[in-house]
């Protein structure tokens, strides 16, 4: 049997309660894989990789001189989330996203939360991602983070924690849908037997949200703004534009004239109402942000400020993505929602606090240190896997700029069985669900399960050799009474 030698090695495992005992929700998948046999599974694996390459579902690796494109490694064994777990995650995310939007809106208006002393003012104003230009702006419905891709992890006891909020331009949702397409072809029977919730409605939901944000009473022309084909997430930009049936534009396709935003077409200029921008704040508009940006659209921010176009996600929302501010999200939830957080944060040490810094510097080999404003696995030290020289380097950086660093205990991330060469081994995973926020909040049932493909590695980012799995959210758990309906 394919799984007979599989060991959980004492980690929380997404598929097995303990060695040899499968979780009830994963029973059917286990049986299907065992019935297929290793050889057949390997054939499917090769076929799926060939398919991804053929379809050009690839990402670009920055810093690679050859401009190499790689497929995002995809593991065929799905990660299964029970209906019960999912309902917990969904409630937690809705609560969190609501509070985060309240916070951002508050920061760019009255700053009640700062005045109340819940969060120190200098933490906010010193954040690199704070945008003075956004002060006093009123995006539709008071929503600043329309599309988020929250990173969740589980520790040794299986508890879910929020690791990062990813409010700016989160990517990965296209892989959620593509992975599902591949698995549907390989395991059609399992989908018939289990009630796996679909993910394909995401583009329609996204389009609905985007159209609802149009400032124009007569039309809602939506476009997706991409930095271009050399961006690592270009495939996704193009995928979403195709799925929604809207235009994919680059900065050079847009122009601001008389205060309105237009795209240049063969028949002249056409007005644009909503821009789903997959470009960072800094590169949106050289007149408002980085003057050296060639990607941006001069005048775009002025049109946005004047309420003549909606930018999604709203510029300036990255303030809540700062990793120091992240540490205060539980306080925000209590402040704005009057409730305790449903999903906990990972305990976080803030290096600008003398006591925390002292502890961090004394315990670097146990901790994960992160720069406050980096993402993608860059600017990060994983203490237990680091060398003395790396720790020394980080100690220096922390002392020089304590505001810019946080540290967290190294979690024993949960693992999931993953195909490695011709066998199955446990690999660490996280989970990125996607949340849409317009008038209402919608959580896509599923999400991107990222896998650290290297043995023992805790870094799941695609830029660092991570892969992905399809995430199956069950509509009913086996044995639960809903199933009898």
């Amino acid at each position, binding site marked *: 049997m394919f799984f007979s030698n599989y060991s959980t090695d004492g980690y929380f495992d997404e598929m097995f309660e303990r060695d040899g005992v499968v979780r009830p929700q994963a029973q059917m998948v286990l049986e299907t894989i065992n019935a297929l046999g290793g050889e057949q599974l390997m054939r499917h694996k090769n076929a799926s990789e060939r398919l991804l390459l*053929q379809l050009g579902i690839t990402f670009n690796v920055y810093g690679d001189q050859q401009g190499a494109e790689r497929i995002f490694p995809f593991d065929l064994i799905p990660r299964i989330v029970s209906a019960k777990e999912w309902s917990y995650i969904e409630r937690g995310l809705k609560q969190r996203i609501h509070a985060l939007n309240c916070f951002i809106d508050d920061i760019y208006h009255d700053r009640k939360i700062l005045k109340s002393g819940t969060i120190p003012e200098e933490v906010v104003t010193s954040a690199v991602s704070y945008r003075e230009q956004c002060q006093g702006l009123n995006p539709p419905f008071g929503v600043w983070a329309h599309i988020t891709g929250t990173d969740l992890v589980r520790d040794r006891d299986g508890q879910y924690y929020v690791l990062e909020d990813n409010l700016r331009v989160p990517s990965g949702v296209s892989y959620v849908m593509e992975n599902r397409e591949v698995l549907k072809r390989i395991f059609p029977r399992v989908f018939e037997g289990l009630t796996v919730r679909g993910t394909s409605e995401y583009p329609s939901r996204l389009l609905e949200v985007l159209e609802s944000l149009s400032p124009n009473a007569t039309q809602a022309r939506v476009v997706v703004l991409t930095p271009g084909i050399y961006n690592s997430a270009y495939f996704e930009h*193009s995928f979403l534009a195709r799925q929604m049936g809207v235009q994919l534009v680059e900065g*050079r*396709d847009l*122009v601001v004239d008389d205060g309105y935003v237009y795209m240049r077409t063969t*028949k002249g200029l*056409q007005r644009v109402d909503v821009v789903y921008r997959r470009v960072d704040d800094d590169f949106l508009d050289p007149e408002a942000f980085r003057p050296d940006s060639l990607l941006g*659209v001069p005048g775009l921010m002025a049109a946005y400020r004047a309420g003549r176009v909606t930018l999604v996600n709203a510029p300036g929302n990255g303030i809540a993505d700062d990793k120091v501010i992240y540490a205060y999200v539980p306080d925000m939830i209590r402040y704005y929602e009057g409730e305790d957080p449903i999903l906990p944060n990972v305990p976080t040490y803030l290096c600008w606090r003398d006591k925390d810094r002292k502890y961090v510097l004394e315990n670097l080999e146990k901790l994960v240190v992160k720069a406050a404003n980096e993402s993608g696995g860059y600017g990060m030290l994983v203490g237990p896997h680091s060398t003395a020289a790396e720790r020394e380097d980080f100690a220096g950086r922390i002392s020089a700029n304590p505001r810019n660093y946080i540290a967290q205990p190294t979690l024993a991330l949960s693992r999931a069985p993953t195909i490695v060469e011709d066998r199955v081994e446990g690999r660490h995973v996280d989970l990125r669900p996607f949340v849409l926020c317009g008038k209402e909040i919608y959580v896509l049932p599923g999400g991107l399960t990222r896998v650290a493909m290297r043995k023992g590695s805790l870094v799941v980012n695609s830029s660092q050799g991570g892969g992905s799995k399809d995430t199956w959210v069950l509509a009913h758990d086996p044995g639960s009474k809903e199933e009898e309906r």
Partner: protein
Amino acid sequence: MPSVQPLLSRVADAVYWMGRYIERAENVARFLDVNHNLLIDLPQDYTGQWQPIIDASGDSALFRERYGEATLRNALQFLAFDPEYPNSVFSCIRSAREDARSVREVISSEMWTQVNDMYLFITEESRRPKHGSLPAFCRAVRMACHLFGGIKDVTMSHNEAWHFNRVGTLLERAEKTSRILDVKYFMLLPSVADVGTPYDDVQWSAVLKSVSAFEMYRKLYGRIAPERIVQFLLLDGDFPRAIRYCIGRADRSLHAITGTPGGTFSCASEQRLGQLRGELDFARVEPILTGGLHEFCDALQTKMNTIDDCVSADFFALRHSRLGAGIGANA
């Protein structure tokens, strides 16, 4: 009621060039193949036969500088695989794929998969230490290009973007046919000594084969005669690689784009293209030959270049207007 989405200028530009690049790749592969085939038919001591095809590429100076002698090996490396030479089969397919990638939401998935397949194929071929059979390679490229054309025609709506692709394809094809005609005629006919020798028929047949016109020509005219060949390749209205056919169909597509009735014009590209179409529609081959085929082809190429410039200015160059001067030129 369905609403027609406006076509971005950048996208129109990219689909137009995608058409040109695929057509160019196909033509280069065909030239290589036919020339190789021709050499087999010629006496062993016949040399220098790779130079004309380099000349037909229009880039012989660059070739001389980079490779020197026109051997099979050098010609193949240059025309098929050289990643630095922008008109090699490899470069054309790479460029077509980049264009396709930037307009995936406009073309069909099937078109994208095909051009991506072509790219994976040519990348693999170019990395081989020793290249396989030339005819097999050329055939694979040609068939892949034809497949792309077929997929395009049956999976993509014949909308504005499709017509831009068609205009690019047809102008490129007309350009290549005129070039091969020009170079070969220049090579073959002035050497009076060659007329009537066995080479003559073989070489003229090769000209026809290099534009896949041999069989269709035979059906129409039978005997191999240089002036009839010129007439066929320049002025035939039904053969899809004949220049008049290409110009006529490009003109139709342009009118489909603008919505202007045929026989009238609303922009410089329509005016120039219509003019050339009329000229070819009412031309006779004899005066062309009397006036000099080379001069005629030269003038034809200049006209087609002007049309290309006009198409750019009329439809793609909005980005260079006063509003966008200098924005993201290389972004």
